[in-house]
């Protein structure tokens, strides 16, 4: 096959609506594959519990009542925005809550992959995924253990069309100390190992969650660390947070395309030498899908287009 068409998305963070849209977009585009560049799981989980004659949940410091007949619609809305919810009879302790939250993440991921299997397999569309820094090892393990249409390409290489596609689902250290962070030196070492598995760099596609430093696709709000160890975004200021190791790796290896995510507010593309670097961006919490359609032909990039759905 000399012509491939990819739908590239990232940082879905548990948004059911974004995932559904990504699948629909891939079908509409008659894509060869969907590439999900990390951060599959959401960040919030509501605890819904029985209250006098109804249900209630806490949102921050507020306790909000919800009628039973509205629960289904509310949970659907949360799911579309990347949130989870669990229904309990008593307020859980931290350990129970963490376990339930983790379970919700992996269950949703499996549901996604099952659905994708039904929608994509008959059409021959592949689903390539990596975890991101916000995905727990539990989620990464669930992805690894999948034997359906969802292919885990974290630190692995697969062949799709004429392209070797390799994935790397970690980031450099962040102020939030998330689950899958590595020092730059370790990122460099592991990327080198991954690069050694590539036979034809000129046609290779790398899916690396953290973008390269300094190409304009790694901008994120500057954060302020407060004395209590909390982190707040500083309004209006953006800084480059990409990885130096990833940038050095791209400059040295010069693959055809590098697909990243991580920085939601920095969708765009840039060239680093001959390598096209893409970040589709993310607005998962509004259920809006940011994606890129990437078309390759005869080992080169023919075109790409940002899509917002």
């Amino acid at each position, binding site marked *: 096959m000399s*012509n491939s*068409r990819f739908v590239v998305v990232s940082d879905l963070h548990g948004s*059911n609506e974004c*995932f*559904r*849209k990504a699948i*629909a*977009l891939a079908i*509409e*585009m008659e894509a060869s594959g969907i590439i999900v560049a990390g951060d599959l799981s959401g960040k919030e989980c509501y605890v819904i519990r029985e209250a006098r004659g109804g249900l209630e949940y806490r949102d921050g410091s507020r306790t909000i009542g919800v009628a039973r007949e509205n629960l289904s619609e509310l949970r*659907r809305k949360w*799911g579309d925005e990347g949130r*989870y919810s669990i229904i309990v009879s008593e307020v859980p302790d931290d350990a129970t809550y963490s376990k339930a939250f983790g379970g*919700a993440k992996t*269950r*949703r991921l499996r*549901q*996604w992959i099952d*659905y994708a299997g039904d929608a994509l397999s008959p059409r021959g569309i592949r689903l390539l995924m990596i975890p991101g820094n916000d995905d727990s090892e539990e989620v990464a393990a669930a992805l690894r253990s999948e034997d359906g249409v969802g292919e885990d390409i974290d630190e692995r290489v697969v062949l799709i069309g004429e392209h070797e596609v390799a994935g790397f689902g970690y980031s450099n250290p962040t102020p939030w100390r998330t689950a899958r962070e590595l020092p730059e030196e370790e990122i460099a070492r592991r990327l080198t190992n991954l690069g050694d598995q590539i036979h034809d*760099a000129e046609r290779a596609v790398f899916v690396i969650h953290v973008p390269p430093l*300094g*190409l*304009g*696709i790694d*901008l994120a709000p500057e954060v302020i660390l407060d004395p209590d160890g909390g982190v707040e975004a500083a309004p*209006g200021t953006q800084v480059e947070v990409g990885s130096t190791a990833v940038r050095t790796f*791209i*400059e*040295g*290896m*010069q693959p055809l395309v590098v697909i990243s995510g991580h920085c939601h*507010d*920095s*969708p*765009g*593309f*840039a*060239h*680093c*030498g*001959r*390598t096209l670097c893409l970040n*589709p*961006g993310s*607005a998962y919490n*509004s*259920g809006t899908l*940011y994606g*890129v*359609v990437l*078309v390759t*032909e005869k080992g080169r990039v*023919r*075109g*790409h*287009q*940002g*899509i*917002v*759905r």
Partner: protein
Amino acid sequence: MSNTPTAQTGPVERRRSGLVRTFSAWGAFLFGIHCISLSSSGFIPYSWVASVWPGADLVWVLTIALGFCVVHAATYAIIGSTVSKAGADYVLASRVLSPSIGFAASWTLVLFSGIVVGGLAAWVPQSAIPALLRPLSIILRDERYNFLADFATTPAGSFVIGAALIIIVTASVLQSGRFIQRVLMLGFVLGLMAWIIILWSLWSAPGPETFVTAWNKFMGPTGAHGDFQSRIPLALAAGMNPNHSMWQMTFAGLIMGFWIFYGYYIPTFFSEEVRNPGKSLFLSSLGALLTSYAIFVVGGLLLYRLVPHDWVAAEGYLFNNPAAATKAAGGEAVVAMPWITFYSAILQPNKVAIVFIAFAWIFTLLNLLQTYFFYASRIVYSWALDRAVPDWVVGPKVTEPHPRRTVLIITGLALVGLFDASVKGPLNTQLTFAFFAVVTGLVPITALTILPWRDRKLFQKMPAFARRRFAGLPFATLLGGGTLLYFLWMIVAAFVFPAVGVGNPVGTLGLLVAFIGSGFLVFWGTRAVRLRRDGIDILATYRIGVPDANEPEFE
């Protein structure tokens, strides 16, 4: 790899536009009030409106006009807050209605706006400068001001002065948003101070006799019919036909609203740069409308305290119908001065005040040009973010995306408009601007009206009041429907009342078809090129969410 690669960057995809939410409601208000223009629109009611609708009470006309413009302002504020992007009207129409129709309408609006900027730049030397210099000449009895005014009205003078204005405005709009806001703020203060002086001059006159005396002192010597008492008979002899019916005044208000108040809603076109657009767009457009309305109405009330309605109409009529006036005057050229600034100047002939008002007037006219440049450049930028026009439009660097090149595109269009207006060319855009603005506005307003049925998700992003239902219909649909009716009336009126609309129907409609047609050609041409070169159909960019049917349920 043997070669050492260097970082090269390309244009950005949609959303990471590089635009920053710089403008608060106050900043957006400044754009709105300057696009209405306290100076150019400050002339219109007392000179043009009064002469086209002789006998109409300006206060009533302005009030009727305000009512319809408020509906329109609310409609556009909903568009800008629902789709808070550069070129929000284009983004909405292209997603909800049709990509090619949305683009072609937007293309037409921008082409026309850009050319009108040139028309406005020519209007400054052709009309505004003489309207300010000739009074100086009369009041200060200094002919040099008349010579300057004469030079400004020649094709060469008008092109040179207009081009200088366009260059100044281009340079200013290329600066940061904060800088532009400061310039607009300065202009607003100057404009407001000028109006305070004007209103105070009118207020401080004890009564009609004072005005008559002042008029006769300065205008009496200008000709056999220069004195105050001769103006109404002369205008009647020249063909003025006063009509004091309420219908007449209401008609005038229904038609003239857009001419007087156009511009209050332009922050919608750059809503991506407005902070908290859900509130700011409403506050700014309504604030600009009400502020200008209040100033013009107070001006009207104070003027009517001194002179009859028919006299104001007569002076405007004599100015706007010079051939008929000359004929009625037995072949003698009639000097007419229907300017609120002139009325103020003869009542308080203070050189410093007159020069200050002239300076403030010119400064706010520059602000007017800035607003056109700004909004039109943002709409072009929006097309480029959708990649519906070549990538180079958004600039060479992904790290520094900036609508600089789109500003320069508007400069090019403005120079075309300036040349046309200077040599009295065929485009004649200024006289048909309201018609074009209305025709192109039909598209996004239709998109908003049908949005609740076309895109449920986007509908949910509307402000809560716009989603509220009355008689079973969302308020946004009712507002959009009302605005559509208003616009359809404006289109009909442009042909029924050619004095304020389409004087040359074949030419105007031909231009409209050419602009819209070229928009379709550009869009479909770009689509064909992208399809052949990149293998991507740009229509995919414009499609909206997945269908609701068969959506899977996840936990």
